[in-house]
């Protein structure tokens, strides 16, 4: 008699275990079914947030020392200031490693505004390469000396780029924000520069990206300054300008490390995420930054347990992972796939339950 009760408990537990195992198996099956088109970590591109054949062609030509496609791409971007600053960044990053072709370009076309702004921005990239990404206390005096020296050179280069640029072009101004950050410029100086940027392009995505970095606690601002800046930008920008991204970025930068996992589900965060979703839906399809927003949205939605919505974003950007938050990790592709799998399993479990 006394043996019956433990036995019953054991049998019941076994039943539950078998059931949950079966469910897990089914969920796994469903997950692999709905995630069939998604790529494994080793096939994720870690150089870009989205495919960009034009940029790839430009870089391929630069590797051969041919600067003409770069010049043509910049000319083709014309007054699409989002595309222009994006391309300048890509080309300049390459010039920070080796600028032989850039010198050829400048020699062939003296006074070319495109080459001038690439030259200046390359100095900033170069300076950052010299500094390295470590905290100030772990950065040697030699690195800092080179960092400041090259940044100071870049100031002159930017002055030249400004003088050569189209009067309505915000690029040489907005690309100076990281320079101001590195040289520890006072707040008033950035306000002055910011007026020059917004006069030319009030809702420029990359300008806001850099400015938010400046106002962040890790550079020249604070948690509150960054939050206020991002909220103000998101509130005043027209739909489709993607500036609703920045309250999310600010929150992620200042809270992700310490906040509890459920913090992403708090009403404040959910509202910010919904605003960004609406903004993305309104953005023009060719916006060079839309993929970046989708990446961060996919992360936030997963954290909020909104797996189906997260998967929708994952599907649209899968294959390229050079974006927040993945890029902050040692192995971005691996972390991306890990979060994506969480979303996949969550969605599958929801389907079984539903």
């Amino acid at each position, binding site marked *: 008699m006394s043996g019956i009760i433990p036995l019953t408990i054991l049998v019941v537990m076994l039943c539950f275990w078998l059931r949950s195992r079966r469910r897990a198996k089914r969920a796994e099956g469903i997950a692999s079914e709905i995630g069939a088109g998604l790529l494994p970590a080793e096939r994720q591109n870690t150089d870009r947030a989205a495919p960009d054949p034009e940029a790839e062609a430009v870089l391929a030509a630069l590797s051969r020392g041919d600067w003409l496609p770069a010049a043509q791409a910049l000319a083709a971007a014309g007054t699409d200031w989002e595309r222009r600053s994006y391309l300048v960044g890509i080309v300049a990053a390459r010039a*920070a*490693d*080796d600028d032989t072709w850039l010198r050829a370009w400048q020699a062939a076309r003296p006074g070319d505004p495109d080459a001038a702004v690439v030259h200046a921005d390359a100095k900033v990239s170069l300076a950052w*390469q010299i500094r390295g990404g470590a905290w100030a206390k772990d950065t040697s005096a*030699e*690195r800092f000396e*080179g960092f400041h020296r*090259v940044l100071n050179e870049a100031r002159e280069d930017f002055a030249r780029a400004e003088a050569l640029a189209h009067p309505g072009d915000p690029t040489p101004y907005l690309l100076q924000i990281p320079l101001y950050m590195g040289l520890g410029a006072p707040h008033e100086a950035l306000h002055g520069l910011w007026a020059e940027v917004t006069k030319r392009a009030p809702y420029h995505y990359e300008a806001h990206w850099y400015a938010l970095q400046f106002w962040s606690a890790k550079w020249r601002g604070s948690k509150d300054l960054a939050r206020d800046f991002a909220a103000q930008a998101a509130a005043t920008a027209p739909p489709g300008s993607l500036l609703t991204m920045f309250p999310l970025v600010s929150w992620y930068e200042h809270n992700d490390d310490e906040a509890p996992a459920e913090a992403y589900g708090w009403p404040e965060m959910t509202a910010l995420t919904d605003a960004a979703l609406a903004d993305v839906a309104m953005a023009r399809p060719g916006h060079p930054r839309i993929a970046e927003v989708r990446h961060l949205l996919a992360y936030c939605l997963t954290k909020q347990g909104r797996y189906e919505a997260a998967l929708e974003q994952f599907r649209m950007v899968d294959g390229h992972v050079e974006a927040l938050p993945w890029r902050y990790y040692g192995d971005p592709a691996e972390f991306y796939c890990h979060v994506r799998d969480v979303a996949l399993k969550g969605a599958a479990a929801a389907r079984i339950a539903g």
Partner: protein
Amino acid sequence: MSASPRALRALVLLAGFYLVALAVLGVLVGADVAAWIWAPAPVAIKVTVITALLGYPVLRGAFALGEGSGDEREALPVTEAEQPELWGTVRALAERSGTRAPDEILLVGEVNAAVSEDARLLGLLPGRRRLYIGVPLLAGLSEPQLHSVIAHELGHYGNADTRLAGITRRGRDCVLRTVGAFQERERKRIGKERSRQEKADAKRLRKGKKARGVDTGRTGLRYRVMAKPFQAYARFYLRVTSGVGRQQELAADRMAVRVAGRDATASALREIAALDAAHDFYQSRYAMLGVEAGLLPPRGEVFGGLRRLLADPERRSALAELRGELPADEESPYDSHPPVAERVRLIEALPDDGRGADPARPALALLRDTERVLARLEDVLLTPEALAMERAEWPELAHRAMYTRATVGAGPLRTALATAGVASGSASGDLTALLDSADTGRLWLVAGYLPKSSDAARATGRAAREFLRPALEAGTYRLAELALVEKAGAYWELSWSERVRLRLPGAAYSGGTQGAPDMEKAPDMEEALAAAVRAATADAPDTAPLRTLLSH
């Protein structure tokens, strides 16, 4: 009397310190007794040795054992027979301050004056008095200003108001000495441990094993633990008594005003702040200029040369500015001195005593046989290594010192040229080889042989170049200087109004305005050289300006 209750409190605090010391010693002795009663002899011996080692700093600090004279600073004593005027002045000042004159007067090399007293019986009985006077003060102050400084120091001995507060001063010295004794023991111990571990590491390496690295974290721990109660007490003590210390300073200032006059005292404080900066500057830029080259200025000039700097009209106006703005040093709760600016403000707020700060003799006039005293001061204050150095007259010293610096500065680049296989041996030949490399696009190949930090060695592309650029530019500049000396007879010239500059013999130079005095041409030459070096080492090198400069 407001000082008395505070002084009494200080006395109690000092007694408390001795209580701590006695308690610690009691514990140590107790441990010994216990060990000898209950432990086997070897353990007891070990315990005794340890307690003796630990107890020594306590004894030494609290009861000033093994202190010798109590003051071991290096100084040149001057007797009354040698310096009757100086002694006469000090005696007269002591009389007017109402205190006993010092028993010794000693000269030191700093911008400072100080008094000390070998007090006995826990600092309750007076002892032998010493007055230290910094020679730079003699060189930079007027006679009334020096009177004020000495009167201030004597005021520390004799202020009737603060006689009891003297215990505080002695107490502070005592507390700090004990803490200092512990720190010194700990340092020595860690030093020993470090060299022992380094030796062990070297041995391991010789045997082909991996070195363990040096870790002295635990060594000296015993001393640190022992010092803890004393340090805590010292902090407490200093916080409580620093107010008294500040009051003593202000009282000494009042004494100085009474004896030497308001204006002389205020101007002396301002002058000392400026003199301090001038002395540091003189020591690093002039007196020690040739140390790398193994050279010192002529005998007596190491301390005496400051007079030349102070006499220079351009330096004088720079110093006048310094006198106007007093250093706004931050007030620390442990500092016994109120900020100088505060002291000057208080003094200048006193009513005019009509004595003014008339132009008066420089204080150095009090010293007999000045040059001989300055030379003897060097014998006392300089290290044997420094005394063994060659002496050179200022112009020669400047040129040889800078030539050595240029040689040392160009060294790594010349080694790199040699490694690249293009060195020629002479400085101008090496420079030409470097410029040829730049013109043929091999500049960074050569620069690649310069010594690199680990960061620089890891960098690639343009970043690698930027890591090397400062060393390349500096090396090229130095090499160009050497080449100019070699080929154009350039030389470095010392000036008391500005830094040492490289100059070309007048006629050989064509870059400046025709007929302009040499003084104005020279800066152009250095700027032109720097610009030419930058052009030659730029990403798109242009060696023409440097070649032109060198062809003269």
